């Protein structure tokens, strides 16, 4: 009799939880898993002979993938987001450079397939620093990216970014810093962050 109560309680709890678990987690996860690139339709003008979104030339290898792990391990997500919201949810698209190359009319909000190369999309926890969805378009040279990591205050005195000096060694030839392999990998990753490839029209 008493054990019946236990089974009824567990059954009730399982039933209550099964609905959100199936409809909010399981089905959307399976539906979004291993998404195939979407080919562009005939007549859709895309520069550089790109045939599908997301394009395979954006696929990261080696160093920049190591950089992705460093980005995660250093907890960059606790201050930097990688999500551009539609204008109904915030003015992210209006900030210069955030949504992509607006001069070419390519700025847009982020889409699920933009994160295909990540293990877990680093959408972010807080936005203490700039959004990094398209930082690879805003900061285009390795030198400048290294400067952002090693001495951010020299670029913006009000910046809240700490200098990641533990990624750099003192130069043996006098003044200046020499990046470690970790810094190079992180820069490779940051330079690869571009989320403005045109999305194909769906038939």
């Amino acid at each position, binding site marked *: 009799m008493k054990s019946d109560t236990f089974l009824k309680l567990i059954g009730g709890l399982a039933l209550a939880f099964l609905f959100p678990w199936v409809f909010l987690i399981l089905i959307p996860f399976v539906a979004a898993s291993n998404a195939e690139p979407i080919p562009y339709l005939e007549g859709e003008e895309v520069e550089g002979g790109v045939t599908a979104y997301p394009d395979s030339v954006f696929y990261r290898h080696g160093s920049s993938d190591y950089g992705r792990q460093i980005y995660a391990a250093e907890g960059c997500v606790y201050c930097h987001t990688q999500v551009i919201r539609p204008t109904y949810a915030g003015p992210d698209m209006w900030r210069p450079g955030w949504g992509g190359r607006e001069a070419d009319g390519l700025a847009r909000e982020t889409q699920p397939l933009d994160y*295909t190369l990540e293990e877990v*999309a680093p959408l972010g926890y807080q936005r203490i620093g700039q959004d990094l969805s398209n930082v690879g378009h805003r900061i285009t040279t390795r030198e400048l990216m290294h400067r952002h990591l090693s001495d951010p205050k020299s670029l913006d005195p009000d910046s809240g970014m*700490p200098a990641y000096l*533990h990624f750099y060694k003192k130069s043996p030839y006098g003044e200046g810093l020499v990046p470690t392999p970790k810094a190079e990998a992180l820069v490779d990753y940051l330079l690869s962050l571009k989320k403005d490839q045109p999305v194909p029209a769906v038939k």
Partner: protein
Amino acid sequence: MTVPQPTPEEMAERASIDRSTRYPVMFFFTSAAAWLLAATLLGFFSSLKLRLPGLWDGCEFLTYGRLFPAHMSALVYGWAMQAGIGVMLWLMARLTRNELKHGVTIIVVGHVWNAAVTLMVLSVWFGFGRGIPLLDFPRWIWPIVAISYSLIVVWMIPMFRSRRNSAVYVSEMFIIGAAVWFPWIFLTANIFINKGTAPVMGAGIDAWYITNLIYFWMAPVALAVAYYIIPKIAGRPIYSYPLAHLTFWLLAFLAGWTGFSRFMGGPFPAWMPGVSGAAAIFILLAILATVTNLMLTLKGCSKIWEYSPSLRFTVFGMLMLGLYALLAAMSSTFYFGKDLQFSHFIVGMDTLAFYGFFSMTIFGAIYFIVPRITGAEWPSGARIRSHFWWSTYGIMTLVVTMLVGGIAQGGNLAVWDQEFSTSFVNSSAYVVGRAVAWALISYSNFLFLYQLALMFIGKGRKSEGPTLIHAKPGAAASAKAAAGLS
């Protein structure tokens, strides 16, 4: 209406139950309190680093990106879950009137749990984190956590099935709920996120895991405590028992839908944040009904909370639960949420849940349980008072500065043609509040750990009467007498 007084046989039975839980429960409480002190210090240093970004430049172990997740992991898995497990074990034994068996197994598994938390915090600290809030640890740690949790709570099932009262107390339902929900959400989150085939859903599932941990584990454990301690100390039954059952099932049906509203406008189908927001608003109903039910139970004898440490902490925790549910519902609407979602507000909310409502309620339970299982009274009422007030000042400072600072920061972020760094400069004053708050909370928990350690080594006060917040030791036999209500 008063509750019948226990007979001598019942008193003896309770004493033997308490003795059976003594070592496992004290083990969890003391190790949790040590983790809490570590977590609050990490919270202080991470806030300091956020205010002064140039501090300790070049030291990789003192960056915000590592200190903050280490702080969160220590606070949740080191302190909150261990203290909660201790409370669950004792409450289950008392409510079902069964002695706790397998005490040695539980202590051994408890050590494994502590080892897992140590590895978790150190791996984040030494740069092996994965940047997934609350699931930062390397992927091989989660099976240890899941298995050790299961091996601790599984003994509650035979206890529940062999309970002596045929009726099911609502506290028992909440404990069974918390016991089975955690493995489910923890396994779901880890298995799906580690599969890694849908990166965006991985981020969504992490947000879902955080709110589910709050509503499906912390809230049930805290409510089990409140539904036990408040009627017990007030000496009267719960105002409305059917309402208590109703709110339990409301929470059970709704909490699993929350979470995705942390990413409104994010790369998800629009219905997902929408459904989560709606669930958060409906949960507000359940939580407000619960808090009202508990406050009506206390009506007319609320003076006791001036004297009884357990009641004071528990009632404060429940009020904070109401505040949390209210702010969670508010921030899941577009009107408030779109400006607040990536601001300091989110830190204020998470800390309000982990410390403001969960920890404060659990302190209430610990102040109630420890004298009963060690057979000694707390050494000093003044230190309990300091613990309460410094914690309260701390958490209120933190919540107010982070919520107001969040509004300020979110407001600055919403002005698209303003320099980005304005939002950092304007909100940095509020971060000072966050650092001060953690310093206050660290101090209060140093007092707590000190008292708990004295109790652990058997240096408690041997006396007839319990330690009250205001009365001199031995001056009154109960909080009721001190409040002039009996």
